[in-house]
């Protein structure tokens, strides 16, 4: 069966969509990605759609689902490389894909993921310190 390849790059997963996806293929991608996140313990997902000529409401929904599902599994999703014509059309269609983080290209997307992961790591460290202090008081 036809599948979209998922590459692992360190702690991130990279998906480059290069074919005109039919709906079932998009659903398969959603399943495959969530499985891979749990298998690899990845904390970031990059979806490169620079080769996609259209994003309609279905593909928009799949992208949104992936972002939400991965967040629940403690991984950030960044959609990168959306073409201007696609973005204009999506806005006209009425989709603003709120909740999905975006970046201009894979490189910038990677930087965004690193920044947000170190931020959350910091936040976690602070939270742990607080916990320790709380413990000490007891």
């Amino acid at each position, binding site marked *: 069966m036809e599948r979209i390849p998922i590459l692992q790059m360190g702690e991130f997963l990279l998906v480059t969509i290069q074919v005109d996806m*039919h709906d079932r293929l998009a659903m398969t991608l959603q399943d495959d990605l969530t499985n891979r996140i749990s298998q690899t313990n990845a904390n970031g997902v990059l979806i490169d759609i620079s080769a996609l000529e*259209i994003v309609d409401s*279905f593909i928009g929904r799949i992208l949104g689902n992936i972002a939400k599902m991965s967040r629940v599994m403690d991984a950030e999703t960044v959609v990168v490389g959306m073409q201007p014509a*696609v973005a204009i*059309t999506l806005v*006209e*269609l*009425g989709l603003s894909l709120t909740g999905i983080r975006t970046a201009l290209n894979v490189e910038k997307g990677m930087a965004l993921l690193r920044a947000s992961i170190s931020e959350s790591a910091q936040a976690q460290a602070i939270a742990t310190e607080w916990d320790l202090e709380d413990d000490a008081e007891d």
Partner: protein
Amino acid sequence: MQKIEELKIQSSADVVLVRQAVRQFAIEVGFGLVDQTKIVTAASELARNTLDYGGGGIVKLETLQEGGRRGLRLTFEDQGPGIADIDMALRDGFTTGGGLGMGLGGAKRLANEFEIESVVGEGTRIIIVRWK
């Protein structure tokens, strides 16, 4: 010269073929990239509706020439259950099929002309036109 083509919509792979055919027509009419993307996206929404809600059907693609302007007309037809409340179906966020509910309303916004006829129990016909 006018160009006409008819395609069947029976599977999600057919939806992809419809998109490709519409893209080809749009290029021939001389649409710019943004206009191409808009009509292809609208076609994708409507083809999926035809498949998911109409149980499959056909689409007719026609190039138009009217005075100095050129355009593209797409006619989607199915013999499905029909739409009982068209106003409701056009509303954003309304869905009976688990989608985002942006299909019909979104396609309408992406086209210059939009026409819908539906008879419950007989089927639905949707016509969209986009001018260059």
